[in-house]
């Protein structure tokens, strides 16, 4: 874990509100695993005050890519960076995906697609390329810009859009349900809470292993503030909560309550 001052290589606008940010971050890139995240210190002043958490979208050589959506002040500032600007990242943080044996199904919804690209590469590097990757979004405009970067890592790239403008019409969990049965498959997923809940239920009902990447408000990202608590499925001794920045952001689905 380190605090690294990174150089902005470039920003790429993918859709109305989504961006790729390319950074030179050799220290973090050398250490990161799929599913881990960084805390970015956006702006130089006291507002925004806290760092913002972002999954590592991709890392190769010295380059680290974030995939983000502008939702507020901090992400707006990220989207207005220029090549050559500096950005302090704290990372890599948290526990990422555990690559396990069995066919891998990757399911991302919206900005939750972010951690899946590095995962797809790690699976391929480990000679177990994803059996299917499902990318779900609201519209065609949101998901198509991601096609090229995911294509090399799987033979089965599936899109799903809420409005049916591209790929399957429907939600990510409906796309998972439409896959042919894959005994022993593992589902790796990240996305909005209702989508994660539906996929966790589907995997439980079909006896599939499932790893989910979840969010929470965070102040420190490294176990110092205890602000990132979420209820645990089975309260451990002395506490009914897990801490997303330390115990996650990736959890076995059965470690969290879904009802």
């Amino acid at each position, binding site marked *: 874990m380190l605090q690294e001052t990174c150089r902005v290589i470039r920003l790429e606008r993918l859709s109305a509100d989504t961006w790729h940010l390319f950074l030179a971050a050799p220290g973090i890139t050398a250490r990161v695993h799929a599913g881990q995240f960084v805390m970015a210190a956006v702006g130089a002043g006291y*507002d925004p005050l806290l760092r913002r958490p972002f999954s590592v979208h991709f890392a190769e050589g010295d380059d680290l890519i974030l995939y983000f959506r502008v939702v507020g002040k901090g992400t707006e500032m990220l989207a207005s960076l220029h090549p050559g600007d500096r950005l302090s990242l704290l990372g890599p943080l948290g526990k990422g995906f555990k690559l396990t044996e069995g066919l891998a199904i990757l399911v991302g919804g919206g900005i939750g697609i972010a951690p899946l690209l590095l995962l797809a590469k790690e699976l391929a590097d480990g000679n177990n390329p994803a059996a299917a990757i499902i990318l779900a979004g609201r519209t065609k405009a949101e998901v198509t810009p991601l096609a090229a970067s995911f294509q090399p890592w799987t033979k089965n790239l599936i899109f799903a859009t809420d409005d049916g403008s591209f790929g399957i019409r429907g939600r990510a969990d409906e796309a998972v349900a439409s896959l042919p049965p894959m005994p022993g498959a593992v589902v790796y997923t990240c996305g909005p809470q209702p989508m994660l809940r539906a996929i966790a239920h589907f995997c439980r009902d079909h006896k599939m292993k499932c790893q989910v990447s979840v969010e929470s*408000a965070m102040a420190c990202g*490294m176990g110092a503030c205890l602000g990132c608590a979420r209820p645990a499925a089975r309260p451990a001794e002395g506490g009914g909560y897990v801490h997303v920045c330390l115990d996650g952001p990736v959890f076995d689905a059965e470690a969290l309550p879904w009802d």
Partner: protein
Amino acid sequence: MGLTASPDLTVDIGGLTLKNPVMTASGTFGYAREFAPFMDLSRLGAIIVKGISLKPRPGNPPPRIVEIACGMLNAIGLENVGVERFIADKMPYLRRLDTPVIVNVLGETVEEYGEIARRLSGVPGVAALEVNISCPNVQKGGVAFGSDPAAAAKVTATAKKNCALPVMVKLSPNVTDIAAIAKAVEDAGADSISLINTLLAMAVDINSRRPKLANVMGGLSGPAIKPIAVRMVYQASRAVKIPVIGIGGVTTADDALEFIIAGASAVQLGTASFRDAAAAAKVLDGIDGWLRQQGIASVAGLIGSLRLD
């Protein structure tokens, strides 16, 4: 002007001499180990660990934190592993550091404060207690004791009676007369006082019309509270003879120096460590640099040097 010799950074905080006036505030520095990748922890004046209670506490439901302009609200609710596991799991690492470790403690009753003080007294590596009578985020204890001079005095006397350690009492800003509380705590035997804990605050989501924190209210910290903290340190330090430790929005060396000139013998950094994990080390370097540049030989001479003429 300009000294080439190293300025003397040592300060006395009441029964304990620190190598410099920069400490880390309770609840914002974990159990210190988390920050070892970012700085040499033994450089710190002292480390104050997360608040500890007699029994483990699960803490409050989420959301527990929310950011506001130039600050944040928290309602962690003193989640901690309890004093026994703290001693067994956390102290072995902490006592190896060449830095005093101050344990922040909280009780639900006066008796609990006594019990936890007794348990920590004599534990190797515990240099002092910081008695938290100012947490705004728990149902019982905390600020209930910190807002009444008689209750604050009772907790202080009980902690003192039950341990041989220096006792620093952490005061709440959620009071009308800080001088009266500071005086009561001093008279009850406190070795020092630290202030401020967070200010009771609230934020509302206008779309859902719900509070942004599950606990409804929480404690405000960060740069937004610094002027209030400086004012209260000034008032408290005029009211007592024991050392006063300044807390609240300290982010830079200038902030720390402001507190020291206003009357603080030392400072604690809280929220600042979230933005920059090495903030405490940078504040220390900055104080050293400023003293050299000003040709001031010792930081102790700066304490309470506020000019009012």
